[in-house]
Protein backbone atom coordinates (compact mmCIF):
# COMPACT_ATOMS: atom_id res chain seq x y z
CA UNK A 1 0.00 0.00 0.00
CA UNK A 2 1.10 3.53 -0.75
CA UNK A 3 0.26 6.50 1.45
CA UNK A 4 1.21 9.87 0.01
CA UNK A 5 1.88 12.91 2.15
CA UNK A 6 1.30 15.88 -0.13
CA UNK A 7 4.38 18.11 -0.09
CA UNK A 8 3.11 21.43 -1.41
CA UNK A 9 5.34 23.84 0.55
CA UNK A 10 2.79 24.29 3.31
CA UNK A 11 5.39 24.68 6.00
CA UNK A 12 7.04 22.16 8.19
CA UNK A 13 5.96 18.59 7.48
CA UNK A 14 8.93 16.70 8.97
CA UNK A 15 6.93 15.65 12.03
CA UNK A 16 4.09 14.35 9.86
CA UNK A 17 6.58 12.32 7.81
CA UNK A 18 8.32 10.94 10.92
CA UNK A 19 5.08 9.94 12.59
CA UNK A 20 3.68 8.20 9.52
CA UNK A 21 6.95 6.31 9.07
CA UNK A 22 6.82 5.28 12.73
CA UNK A 23 3.19 4.11 12.48
CA UNK A 24 3.69 2.40 9.13
CA UNK A 25 6.79 0.53 10.28
CA UNK A 26 7.83 -1.27 7.10
CA UNK A 27 4.38 -2.53 6.10
CA UNK A 28 3.29 0.55 4.20
CA UNK A 29 5.17 2.71 1.74
CA UNK A 30 5.11 6.39 2.69
CA UNK A 31 5.68 8.82 -0.19
CA UNK A 32 6.29 12.52 0.28
CA UNK A 33 5.61 14.31 -2.97
CA UNK A 34 3.51 16.72 -5.01
CA UNK A 35 3.88 14.56 -8.12
CA UNK A 36 0.38 14.29 -9.59
CA UNK A 37 0.80 10.79 -10.98
CA UNK A 38 2.09 9.49 -7.68
CA UNK A 39 -0.86 11.05 -5.87
CA UNK A 40 -3.29 9.54 -8.39
CA UNK A 41 -1.86 6.07 -7.98
CA UNK A 42 -1.63 6.11 -4.19
CA UNK A 43 -4.13 4.37 -1.94
CA UNK A 44 -4.39 7.12 0.64
CA UNK A 45 -3.47 10.76 0.80
CA UNK A 46 -2.49 12.97 3.72
CA UNK A 47 -2.95 16.70 3.36
CA UNK A 48 -0.94 18.52 6.04
CA UNK A 49 -1.08 22.29 6.50
CA UNK A 50 0.65 24.90 8.61
CA UNK A 51 0.58 28.65 8.54
CA UNK A 52 -2.46 30.56 7.41
CA UNK A 53 -5.48 29.29 5.48
CA UNK A 54 -4.63 31.68 2.66
CA UNK A 55 -0.96 30.68 2.46
CA UNK A 56 -1.91 26.98 2.29
CA UNK A 57 -4.57 27.50 -0.39
CA UNK A 58 -2.14 29.68 -2.37
CA UNK A 59 0.52 26.97 -2.06
CA UNK A 60 -1.93 24.30 -3.31
CA UNK A 61 -2.96 26.48 -6.25
CA UNK A 62 0.63 27.26 -7.17
CA UNK A 63 1.22 23.64 -8.15
CA UNK A 64 -0.50 23.21 -11.50
CA UNK A 65 -3.14 20.49 -11.52
CA UNK A 66 -2.79 19.66 -7.83
CA UNK A 67 -6.28 20.78 -6.75
CA UNK A 68 -7.84 18.91 -9.71
CA UNK A 69 -5.87 15.80 -8.80
CA UNK A 70 -6.97 15.99 -5.17
CA UNK A 71 -10.59 16.52 -6.26
CA UNK A 72 -10.39 13.48 -8.47
CA UNK A 73 -8.80 11.43 -5.67
CA UNK A 74 -11.15 12.40 -2.86
CA UNK A 75 -14.41 13.38 -4.55
CA UNK A 76 -14.63 11.33 -7.77
CA UNK A 77 -12.68 8.23 -6.73
CA UNK A 78 -13.64 8.46 -3.06
CA UNK A 79 -10.28 7.28 -1.81
CA UNK A 80 -9.34 7.96 1.84
CA UNK A 81 -7.85 11.36 2.54
CA UNK A 82 -6.77 12.82 5.88
CA UNK A 83 -6.39 16.57 6.40
CA UNK A 84 -4.39 17.76 9.40
CA UNK A 85 -4.83 21.22 10.97
CA UNK A 86 -5.02 23.71 8.06
CA UNK A 87 -5.23 20.58 5.87
CA UNK A 88 -8.63 19.97 7.49
CA UNK A 89 -9.58 23.64 7.34
CA UNK A 90 -9.09 23.71 3.57
CA UNK A 91 -12.04 21.28 3.21
CA UNK A 92 -14.31 24.28 3.90
CA UNK A 93 -15.94 26.57 1.32
CA UNK A 94 -14.31 29.69 2.64
CA UNK A 95 -11.73 30.95 5.13
CA UNK A 96 -11.30 34.36 6.73
CA UNK A 97 -7.63 34.29 7.83
CA UNK A 98 -5.67 37.28 6.42
CA UNK A 99 -8.33 37.81 3.78
CA UNK A 100 -11.43 36.04 2.48
CA UNK A 101 -10.16 32.97 0.62
CA UNK A 102 -12.02 30.22 -1.19
CA UNK A 103 -11.41 26.69 0.12
CA UNK A 104 -11.72 23.28 -1.54
CA UNK A 105 -15.45 23.10 -0.74
CA UNK A 106 -15.41 19.41 0.12
CA UNK A 107 -17.25 19.84 3.41
CA UNK A 108 -19.54 22.81 3.39
CA UNK A 109 -18.72 25.39 6.02
CA UNK A 110 -16.37 28.22 6.96
CA UNK A 111 -13.15 28.88 8.85
CA UNK A 112 -13.49 31.63 11.45
CA UNK A 113 -11.26 33.02 14.16
CA UNK A 114 -11.88 31.46 17.56
CA UNK A 115 -13.85 33.86 19.74
CA UNK A 116 -11.40 34.72 22.54
CA UNK A 117 -14.17 36.38 24.58
CA UNK A 118 -12.38 39.71 24.88
CA UNK A 119 -9.03 38.24 25.76
CA UNK A 120 -10.33 35.72 28.28
CA UNK A 121 -8.91 32.91 26.14
CA UNK A 122 -5.39 33.18 24.79
CA UNK A 123 -4.81 32.60 21.10
CA UNK A 124 -3.38 30.54 19.53
CA UNK A 125 -5.10 27.68 21.34
CA UNK A 126 -1.85 25.87 22.10
CA UNK A 127 -1.40 22.69 24.06
CA UNK A 128 -3.05 19.46 25.10
CA UNK A 129 -6.80 19.43 25.20
CA UNK A 130 -9.31 16.63 25.63
CA UNK A 131 -11.50 15.52 22.78
CA UNK A 132 -15.17 14.80 23.18
CA UNK A 133 -16.06 12.01 20.79
CA UNK A 134 -19.56 12.52 19.36
CA UNK A 135 -19.76 9.58 17.01
CA UNK A 136 -17.81 6.57 15.88
CA UNK A 137 -15.15 7.47 13.39
CA UNK A 138 -12.77 5.09 11.64
CA UNK A 139 -9.80 7.22 12.62
CA UNK A 140 -10.81 7.33 16.30
CA UNK A 141 -10.88 3.57 16.73
CA UNK A 142 -9.31 2.53 20.06
CA UNK A 143 -9.13 6.17 21.14
CA UNK A 144 -11.07 6.74 24.34
CA UNK A 145 -13.39 9.63 24.90
CA UNK A 146 -11.62 12.54 26.69
CA UNK A 147 -8.21 11.55 25.35
CA UNK A 148 -5.68 14.37 25.12
CA UNK A 149 -4.50 15.67 21.75
CA UNK A 150 -2.06 18.44 20.86
CA UNK A 151 -3.55 21.60 19.34
CA UNK A 152 -2.03 24.73 17.79
CA UNK A 153 -4.48 27.00 15.99
CA UNK A 154 -6.36 30.29 16.14
CA UNK A 155 -9.06 29.50 13.58
CA UNK A 156 -11.80 26.89 13.72
CA UNK A 157 -13.89 24.94 11.23
CA UNK A 158 -17.63 25.57 11.43
CA UNK A 159 -19.30 22.98 9.17
CA UNK A 160 -22.87 23.53 8.01
CA UNK A 161 -23.83 19.91 8.42
CA UNK A 162 -23.12 18.99 12.05
CA UNK A 163 -23.32 15.28 11.20
CA UNK A 164 -19.77 15.37 9.83
CA UNK A 165 -18.39 16.19 13.30
CA UNK A 166 -16.86 13.19 15.03
CA UNK A 167 -15.23 15.06 17.95
CA UNK A 168 -15.08 18.50 19.53
CA UNK A 169 -12.83 20.11 22.11
CA UNK A 170 -13.69 22.73 24.69
CA UNK A 171 -11.90 26.06 24.43
CA UNK A 172 -13.94 29.22 24.52
CA UNK A 173 -16.70 27.13 22.91
CA UNK A 174 -17.01 23.61 21.52
CA UNK A 175 -14.48 23.58 18.72
CA UNK A 176 -14.76 21.01 15.95
CA UNK A 177 -11.60 18.90 16.09
CA UNK A 178 -12.37 15.76 14.09
CA UNK A 179 -14.56 15.31 11.03
CA UNK A 180 -15.52 12.38 8.85
CA UNK A 181 -17.51 12.61 5.63
CA UNK A 182 -17.52 9.33 3.75
CA UNK A 183 -13.86 8.89 2.68
CA UNK A 184 -12.72 12.31 3.88
CA UNK A 185 -11.21 12.66 7.36
CA UNK A 186 -9.72 15.60 9.17
CA UNK A 187 -8.27 16.53 12.52
CA UNK A 188 -7.78 20.05 13.83
CA UNK A 189 -5.28 18.70 16.36
CA UNK A 190 -1.91 17.28 15.38
CA UNK A 191 -1.92 13.48 15.62
CA UNK A 192 1.76 13.54 14.65
CA UNK A 193 2.50 15.45 17.87
CA UNK A 194 -0.03 13.72 20.11
CA UNK A 195 2.22 10.96 21.37
CA UNK A 196 0.95 7.35 21.43
CA UNK A 197 -2.72 8.19 20.88
CA UNK A 198 -1.80 10.36 17.92
CA UNK A 199 0.14 7.46 16.43
CA UNK A 200 -2.95 5.31 17.03
CA UNK A 201 -5.02 7.71 14.91
CA UNK A 202 -2.40 7.66 12.15
CA UNK A 203 -2.36 3.88 12.34
CA UNK A 204 -6.17 3.83 12.12
CA UNK A 205 -6.05 5.95 8.97
CA UNK A 206 -3.37 3.75 7.41
CA UNK A 207 -5.51 0.68 8.15
CA UNK A 208 -8.80 1.98 6.72
Amino acid at each position, binding site marked *: MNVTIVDYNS*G*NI*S*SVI*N*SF*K*EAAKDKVNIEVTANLNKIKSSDKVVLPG*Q*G*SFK*SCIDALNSIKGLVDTLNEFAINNKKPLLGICVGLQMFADIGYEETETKGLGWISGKISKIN*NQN*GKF*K*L*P*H*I*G*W*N*QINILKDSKILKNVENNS*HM*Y*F*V*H*SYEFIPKDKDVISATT*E*YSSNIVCSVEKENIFGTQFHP*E*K*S*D*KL*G*LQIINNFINI
Partner: protein
Amino acid sequence: MLKNRIIPCLDVKNGRVVKGINFVDLKDAGDPVEQAKIYSDGGADEICFLDITASNENRKTIYEVVRKTSEKCFVPLTVGGGVRSVEDINKLLNCGADKVSINTAAVQNSDVIVESSKKFGSQCIVVAIDAKKNNEKWEVFTHGGRNKTGIDALDFAKKMEDCGAGELLVTSMDRDGTQVGYDIDLMSKISTIVNIPIIASGGVGNLDHLVDGIEKGKASAVLAASIFHYGKHSIKEAKEYLDSKGIPVRI
Protein backbone atom coordinates in the same frame (compact mmCIF):
# COMPACT_ATOMS: atom_id res chain seq x y z
CA MET B 1 -10.32 21.70 28.90
CA LEU B 2 -6.91 22.98 27.86
CA LYS B 3 -4.17 21.67 30.13
CA ASN B 4 -1.18 23.53 31.49
CA ARG B 5 2.00 22.21 29.97
CA ILE B 6 5.16 21.01 31.67
CA ILE B 7 8.20 21.43 29.48
CA PRO B 8 11.57 20.00 30.45
CA CYS B 9 14.38 21.98 28.90
CA LEU B 10 17.67 20.45 27.90
CA ASP B 11 20.59 22.82 27.52
CA VAL B 12 22.76 21.42 24.77
CA LYS B 13 26.39 22.20 24.06
CA ASN B 14 28.26 20.46 21.26
CA GLY B 15 25.55 17.81 21.10
CA ARG B 16 25.63 17.06 24.83
CA VAL B 17 23.25 18.06 27.60
CA VAL B 18 24.43 20.54 30.21
CA LYS B 19 22.71 22.79 32.71
CA GLY B 20 24.46 25.76 34.15
CA ILE B 21 24.03 27.68 37.37
CA ASN B 22 23.57 31.27 36.22
CA PHE B 23 24.89 30.20 32.83
CA VAL B 24 28.33 29.12 34.14
CA ASP B 25 29.80 26.01 35.81
CA LEU B 26 28.35 23.62 33.28
CA LYS B 27 27.99 19.95 34.11
CA ASP B 28 27.70 17.28 31.46
CA ALA B 29 24.58 15.25 32.05
CA GLY B 30 24.01 13.04 29.07
CA ASP B 31 22.85 12.44 25.57
CA PRO B 32 20.04 14.79 24.48
CA VAL B 33 18.25 12.29 22.25
CA GLU B 34 17.99 9.68 24.99
CA GLN B 35 17.04 12.30 27.56
CA ALA B 36 14.30 13.67 25.33
CA LYS B 37 12.91 10.18 24.80
CA ILE B 38 12.87 9.53 28.56
CA TYR B 39 10.99 12.79 29.06
CA SER B 40 8.43 12.17 26.32
CA ASP B 41 7.84 8.60 27.56
CA GLY B 42 7.43 10.05 31.05
CA GLY B 43 4.64 12.37 29.94
CA ALA B 44 6.42 15.64 29.08
CA ASP B 45 4.00 17.85 27.16
CA GLU B 46 6.76 19.26 25.00
CA ILE B 47 10.53 19.07 24.86
CA CYS B 48 12.77 22.10 24.62
CA PHE B 49 16.38 22.15 23.47
CA LEU B 50 18.40 25.24 24.08
CA ASP B 51 21.69 25.31 22.19
CA ILE B 52 23.39 27.50 24.77
CA THR B 53 26.67 28.31 23.15
CA ALA B 54 25.33 28.33 19.64
CA SER B 55 26.08 32.00 19.17
CA ASN B 56 29.79 31.33 19.36
CA GLU B 57 30.39 27.79 18.26
CA ASN B 58 29.74 25.36 15.49
CA ARG B 59 26.02 24.72 15.32
CA LYS B 60 25.95 21.66 13.10
CA THR B 61 25.69 19.27 16.06
CA ILE B 62 22.25 20.60 17.05
CA TYR B 63 20.77 19.75 13.64
CA GLU B 64 21.73 16.13 14.04
CA VAL B 65 20.36 16.08 17.62
CA VAL B 66 17.05 17.55 16.41
CA ARG B 67 16.82 15.13 13.51
CA LYS B 68 17.38 12.08 15.70
CA THR B 69 15.05 13.31 18.43
CA SER B 70 12.19 14.01 16.05
CA GLU B 71 12.38 10.45 14.77
CA LYS B 72 11.88 9.11 18.28
CA CYS B 73 9.70 11.64 20.12
CA PHE B 74 6.15 12.37 19.03
CA VAL B 75 5.46 15.38 21.21
CA PRO B 76 6.27 18.96 20.16
CA LEU B 77 9.93 19.87 20.06
CA THR B 78 11.09 23.46 20.50
CA VAL B 79 14.66 24.42 19.63
CA GLY B 80 16.38 27.67 20.44
CA GLY B 81 19.81 29.21 20.76
CA GLY B 82 21.76 31.05 18.10
CA VAL B 83 18.82 31.32 15.72
CA ARG B 84 19.69 34.34 13.61
CA SER B 85 17.65 34.29 10.44
CA VAL B 86 14.65 32.96 8.58
CA GLU B 87 17.03 30.49 6.96
CA ASP B 88 18.17 29.18 10.40
CA ILE B 89 14.51 28.70 11.35
CA ASN B 90 13.85 26.88 8.09
CA LYS B 91 16.80 24.53 8.71
CA LEU B 92 15.66 23.62 12.22
CA LEU B 93 12.08 23.03 11.08
CA ASN B 94 13.31 20.83 8.25
CA CYS B 95 15.30 18.78 10.75
CA GLY B 96 12.08 18.11 12.65
CA ALA B 97 11.73 20.95 15.17
CA ASP B 98 8.09 21.98 15.63
CA LYS B 99 8.84 25.40 17.05
CA VAL B 100 11.89 27.60 17.06
CA SER B 101 12.70 29.99 19.84
CA ILE B 102 14.39 33.25 18.91
CA ASN B 103 16.08 35.59 21.34
CA THR B 104 18.89 37.93 20.23
CA ALA B 105 17.76 38.15 16.60
CA ALA B 106 14.26 39.18 17.69
CA VAL B 107 15.73 42.15 19.57
CA GLN B 108 18.16 43.15 16.84
CA ASN B 109 15.76 42.81 13.95
CA SER B 110 12.08 42.27 14.61
CA ASP B 111 11.53 41.70 10.87
CA VAL B 112 12.85 38.18 11.46
CA ILE B 113 9.73 37.54 13.57
CA VAL B 114 7.40 39.26 11.09
CA GLU B 115 8.82 37.33 8.14
CA SER B 116 9.16 33.95 9.79
CA SER B 117 5.68 34.00 11.32
CA LYS B 118 4.25 34.81 7.89
CA LYS B 119 6.33 32.17 6.17
CA PHE B 120 6.02 29.30 8.66
CA GLY B 121 3.02 30.36 10.76
CA SER B 122 2.91 31.91 14.24
CA GLN B 123 2.49 28.47 15.76
CA CYS B 124 6.18 27.71 15.32
CA ILE B 125 7.62 31.08 16.33
CA VAL B 126 8.48 31.43 20.01
CA VAL B 127 10.20 34.59 21.16
CA ALA B 128 12.50 34.01 24.12
CA ILE B 129 12.75 37.03 26.40
CA ASP B 130 15.61 37.07 28.90
CA ALA B 131 14.84 39.78 31.43
CA LYS B 132 16.60 41.19 34.46
CA LYS B 133 14.96 43.30 37.14
CA ASN B 134 16.12 46.89 37.45
CA ASN B 135 14.24 48.89 40.10
CA GLU B 136 10.58 48.21 39.32
CA LYS B 137 11.18 47.42 35.66
CA TRP B 138 12.68 44.56 33.72
CA GLU B 139 15.30 44.99 31.05
CA VAL B 140 15.75 42.68 28.07
CA PHE B 141 19.15 40.99 27.72
CA THR B 142 20.56 39.23 24.68
CA HIS B 143 23.41 36.86 23.81
CA GLY B 144 22.53 34.33 26.51
CA GLY B 145 22.18 37.04 29.10
CA ARG B 146 25.49 38.75 28.43
CA ASN B 147 24.36 41.97 26.77
CA LYS B 148 22.14 44.74 28.10
CA THR B 149 19.74 46.34 25.64
CA GLY B 150 17.98 49.08 27.59
CA ILE B 151 14.68 47.71 26.26
CA ASP B 152 11.74 47.31 28.63
CA ALA B 153 10.63 43.67 28.75
CA LEU B 154 6.90 44.49 28.89
CA ASP B 155 7.08 46.79 25.87
CA PHE B 156 9.12 44.20 24.04
CA ALA B 157 6.66 41.41 24.85
CA LYS B 158 3.79 43.43 23.40
CA LYS B 159 5.83 44.29 20.32
CA MET B 160 6.69 40.64 19.70
CA GLU B 161 3.02 39.67 19.90
CA ASP B 162 2.26 42.33 17.29
CA CYS B 163 5.09 41.03 15.08
CA GLY B 164 3.46 37.61 14.98
CA ALA B 165 5.08 35.54 17.75
CA GLY B 166 2.89 32.57 18.71
CA GLU B 167 4.26 32.23 22.24
CA LEU B 168 6.67 33.97 24.59
CA LEU B 169 9.26 32.08 26.60
CA VAL B 170 10.00 34.41 29.50
CA THR B 171 13.17 33.79 31.53
CA SER B 172 14.13 35.73 34.59
CA MET B 173 17.89 36.18 34.46
CA ASP B 174 17.92 36.93 38.19
CA ARG B 175 16.32 33.61 38.98
CA ASP B 176 17.84 31.30 36.38
CA GLY B 177 19.82 28.56 38.08
CA THR B 178 19.02 29.78 41.60
CA GLN B 179 16.19 27.33 42.35
CA VAL B 180 14.29 29.95 44.39
CA GLY B 181 11.29 30.05 42.05
CA TYR B 182 10.07 31.99 39.01
CA ASP B 183 9.93 35.76 39.03
CA ILE B 184 6.15 35.72 39.49
CA ASP B 185 5.76 39.48 39.07
CA LEU B 186 7.46 39.44 35.70
CA MET B 187 5.44 36.45 34.48
CA SER B 188 2.06 37.76 35.54
CA LYS B 189 2.72 41.26 34.20
CA ILE B 190 3.70 39.94 30.76
CA SER B 191 0.90 37.37 30.71
CA THR B 192 -1.62 40.10 31.47
CA ILE B 193 -0.54 42.49 28.72
CA VAL B 194 -0.33 39.95 25.89
CA ASN B 195 -3.01 37.63 24.51
CA ILE B 196 -0.60 34.89 23.42
CA PRO B 197 0.45 32.07 25.78
CA ILE B 198 3.55 32.53 27.90
CA ILE B 199 5.98 29.90 29.10
CA ALA B 200 7.57 30.68 32.46
CA SER B 201 11.25 29.90 32.85
CA GLY B 202 14.15 30.42 35.23
CA GLY B 203 14.46 29.52 38.88
CA VAL B 204 12.47 26.34 39.52
CA GLY B 205 13.75 24.49 42.59
CA ASN B 206 10.69 22.56 43.71
CA LEU B 207 7.24 21.51 42.57
CA ASP B 208 5.49 24.37 44.37
CA HIS B 209 7.36 26.75 42.07
CA LEU B 210 5.61 25.14 39.10
CA VAL B 211 2.25 25.66 40.82
CA ASP B 212 3.12 29.32 41.46
CA GLY B 213 4.18 29.87 37.86
CA ILE B 214 0.75 28.81 36.66
CA GLU B 215 -1.47 30.11 39.44
CA LYS B 216 0.26 33.36 40.32
CA GLY B 217 2.38 33.89 37.22
CA LYS B 218 -0.57 33.11 34.91
CA ALA B 219 1.72 31.12 32.62
CA SER B 220 0.17 28.62 30.21
CA ALA B 221 3.23 26.42 30.45
CA VAL B 222 6.11 25.97 32.85
CA LEU B 223 9.63 25.18 31.78
CA ALA B 224 12.24 23.68 34.05
CA ALA B 225 15.56 21.95 33.68
CA SER B 226 17.53 20.91 36.71
CA ILE B 227 14.68 19.62 38.89
CA PHE B 228 13.94 17.06 36.21
CA HIS B 229 17.35 16.57 34.88
CA TYR B 230 19.22 15.46 37.96
CA GLY B 231 16.43 13.10 38.91
CA LYS B 232 15.13 15.25 41.75
CA HIS B 233 11.60 14.86 40.37
CA SER B 234 10.10 12.96 37.47
CA ILE B 235 7.65 14.55 35.04
CA LYS B 236 5.01 12.18 36.41
CA GLU B 237 5.59 13.37 39.99
CA ALA B 238 5.35 16.97 38.87
CA LYS B 239 2.08 16.35 37.07
CA GLU B 240 0.58 14.42 39.95
CA TYR B 241 1.57 17.23 42.30
CA LEU B 242 0.00 19.90 40.08
CA ASP B 243 -3.11 17.77 39.72
CA SER B 244 -3.33 17.47 43.53
CA LYS B 245 -3.27 21.27 43.68
CA GLY B 246 -6.19 21.49 41.27
CA ILE B 247 -4.16 22.58 38.24
CA PRO B 248 -5.34 20.98 34.99
CA VAL B 249 -2.60 18.78 33.54
CA ARG B 250 -2.50 15.93 31.07
CA ILE B 251 -2.08 12.70 33.02
